[in-house]
């Protein structure tokens, strides 16, 4: 039996002065969740964090009744999330990067959706508002929408890492290893594929949004410039196995 309905896991590293708005958005979410009768805890995973970030977190979390700030030494956001999930005491966990913000209804709406569905769901906000450098909107696709197609997951990642998921499922299906030297990166993309293969359904919580800070230098850009791919997954082979030949297939067969 979990102690809380939801654990908010904030991944901190060297976000410095950007951490406060992130934690403020968690607080706003907790307020709405509390009104809905949900219990929450905050777990801040400080992976090789700098002194300023540690100090800001320390000053900002005092108001949270259930909070733990956990120093870590992974240097890898996937590993940090895995460790945080192991330590979390909520039935569900929700991830937030230390420089991003959740919309206020995110946790309560996601909890309502997840708890009403017997299937294993991985939940995402409907929209992500990217602000700062190159502002744009990233609209998540629901894996059960009519436009969904697994194919292009081989080209791009459909969902951000700020998901809402059952804690035990995450512990059983942790984020895969990344190794930039071996050109294996994109822990979130790889995990999104991995959980699909494990039978989970990626769904969007209608009406919810996150704000994502765009920086000129980001981990994604570093990973991209290193020529990385996501850790391979067998999800595509599974899809192909059940795929019937199209009547208008252009695959040529020699006679």
């Amino acid at each position: 039996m979990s102690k809380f309905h939801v654990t908010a896991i904030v991944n901190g590293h060297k976000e410095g002065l950007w951490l406060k708005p992130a934690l403020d958005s968690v607080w706003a979410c907790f307020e709405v969740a509390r009104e809905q009768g949900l219990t929450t805890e905050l777990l801040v995973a400080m992976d090789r964090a700098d002194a300023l970030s540690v100090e800001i977190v320390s000053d900002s979390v005092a108001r949270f009744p259930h909070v733990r700030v956990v120093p870590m030494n992974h240097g890898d956001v996937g590993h940090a999330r895995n460790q945080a999930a192991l330590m979390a005491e909520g039935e569900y966990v929700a991830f937030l990067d230390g420089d991003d913000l959740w919309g206020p209804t995110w946790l309560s709406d996601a909890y309502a959706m997840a708890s009403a569905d017997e299937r294993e769901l991985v939940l995402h906000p409907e929209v992500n508002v990217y602000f700062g450098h190159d502002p744009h909107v990233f609209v998540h696709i629901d894996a059960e929408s009519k436009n969904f197609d697994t194919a292009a997951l081989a080209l791009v990642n459909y969902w951000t890492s700020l998901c809402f998921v059952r804690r035990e499922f995450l512990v059983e299906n942790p984020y895969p290893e990344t190794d930039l030297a071996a050109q294996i990166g994109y822990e979130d993309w790889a995990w999104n594929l991995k959980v699909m293969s494990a039978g989970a359904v990626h769904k969007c919580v209608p009406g919810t949004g996150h704000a994502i800070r765009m920086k000129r230098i980001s981990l994604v850009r570093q990973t991209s410039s290193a020529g990385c791919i996501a850790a391979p997954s067998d999800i595509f082979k599974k899809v192909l196995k059940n795929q019937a030949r199209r009547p208008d297939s252009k695959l040529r067969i020699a006679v």
Partner: protein
Amino acid sequence: MKPGMNFKKLLKRIAQLVNEYRDAGLLRQSDLFDKEWYRERNPDVPEGAEIRHFLRFGGREGRAPSEKFDAAGYLKANKDVAYRGLNPLVHYLKWGKEEGRKVAVARPPMRVPLSEKRRSAPAIDLSRYSRNGTLLVTEQEIRDLELLHETDLFDAEWYLENYPHLKNQDPYLHFLRHGGFEGLKASENFDCEWYCDIYPDVVLHGVHPLLHYLKHGMKEGRFKGMPPKIASVVKRTVADLMTLDPEIESCHPLHGKHLRLRPNFSIPTDELGAAWTEIFHDLPAGIRHVVFMPWLVKGGADLAGVNILRAAQEAVGVSATLLVLTDHDKVDAFDWLPSGSQVLVLSDYDADLNQQNRQRIVEALIFALQPESITNVNSLACWAALVEKGKAFQSICKVYTTLFCRDFTEDGRGAGYADTHLRAAIHNVDKIYFDTNVFLEEVVARYGFTPALTQKLQFLPQPALDDLREIAKKAQADEQRPAIFWAGRFCHQKNTELLGRIIRSLPEVALDVYGGGEPQREAELAALAETQPKLRLLGMFASFSKLPLERYAAFLFTSRFEGMPTVLINAAAAGVPIIASNVGGVCELVTNETGWLIDALDDERAYCAAIQEILDNPEEVQRRLQAMRKKLGIERSWSAFKAGLPFSSMSSSEAEHV
């Protein structure tokens, strides 16, 4: 909203209304505006709103204000008026008349009898746009209407539901002629007002917003806006969070009536996404080995690729292999492929894919199929992928590639993957197969490969074809063969000018020449044939094995540079004596034990001596042919070729002989 901005907007609106009032007065006084005539021809215009409609929309849309004034013609003839988005009649009355600009009477739209044939059958039912057998729409309008019927960005049902005053009109025609220009929404997913607001150049040029997006904007990477439901979630998220982080508040594109934001809808909708999605749904399951080639033409490298595919098929089964032609759509040698071979031609999905997208598809294929191994046989897209992401591929599969001797450009510069891609990719490759030892050693020496790197390089002689061995048997039984032959492309590399000198030195020897190529060389050889009766030009040949090889005493090979020409392997397999220039890897097959190897590449006397010896000394010919047969049996058998490849270690439940 800042108070200053409100005031500015208010002033602007007042100025617009004042101008409109003045212009309306101008129209009322002019006999070039006919209210009744305008309403009759524009049933979407409410009674009493004719002047306002013409000033706000009709004029810029090119609707005629009366039969005396051709607004569309005026805009067409006076680009400055159209470019500035001015009302044509107002412009004429205020300035154009004094400037001497011409006006024409309004003409009804070109009406085409229904029976008149169009270039192609329209994709829409034209009867709804005709009356008494006459079309009421122009050819251009038919094409635009077809576009509107095709796209899901225009929803006719939604359009009529949301603009109920148009219920008696054809929604497509109204949207095409008027609604788009008036900033109406085409559907939940396309708002003309938004598009025009974001892209004022569309307004300035008087282009229909949705048609602009479909014809140009999409290709130019312009945005089509976002559905209102999504926009409202974005606005709410921004409103909720801007108090928490002032950077959100100061991010201008997030605010205002129209969100000036690039929307990204998870699944890519560009040409790469479209091509890849279609490719993915054509992919067979259970692929264990993929061969990447640029194309499949009748060349030596292509034959090498087919041989590698065939070897993989024999190891893992035909259905577990896939041949991907990455760079071009040429498939002239498709009949070389073993039966059942599965071939993906990227150009079948989009002939205009750029090189970068072809590379991305190669990467996606490896990522999605997760084969046990891949072989790259001269595919540029695959070489580029190996350079950029080869290390990652090695976590998925074994990576093999081939290297053939470098090509030379017209001006004599060397060009090949060995020079451009090998050094960057070698760390990401498990094995590289060379068809000649000469080139392998040259690469090692030129780039200073360490022993560890050299370990990755392997000489893999291409096998001789079985069907040519049958010709050899037949030839042995035949009588003496007095003529010699040359076969190849007429170009600098093949040294066709040497043929002239040889035939002049040995005018009594018959020389048959197969092939074609550069027009000037063709003309020179044709002129030579007129003066040398023993020279016959026999044109292009479909394949070496189709030539009447048994007729000839020798095959003459005169190239200036080569790797290991397949044509020599074929001639050797067919039991034809070979006289060959000592270039590239030729000496690995033709020696003075197995044929006649000419070191003096451009000296006709050396070739003539060899020809003479072949014609005069049949015993020596038989001795050397015997030596060649033995060499082929040891070095260039199919089993030797397969043993050189790594596929035998791939276990198979359905391996078969191909």
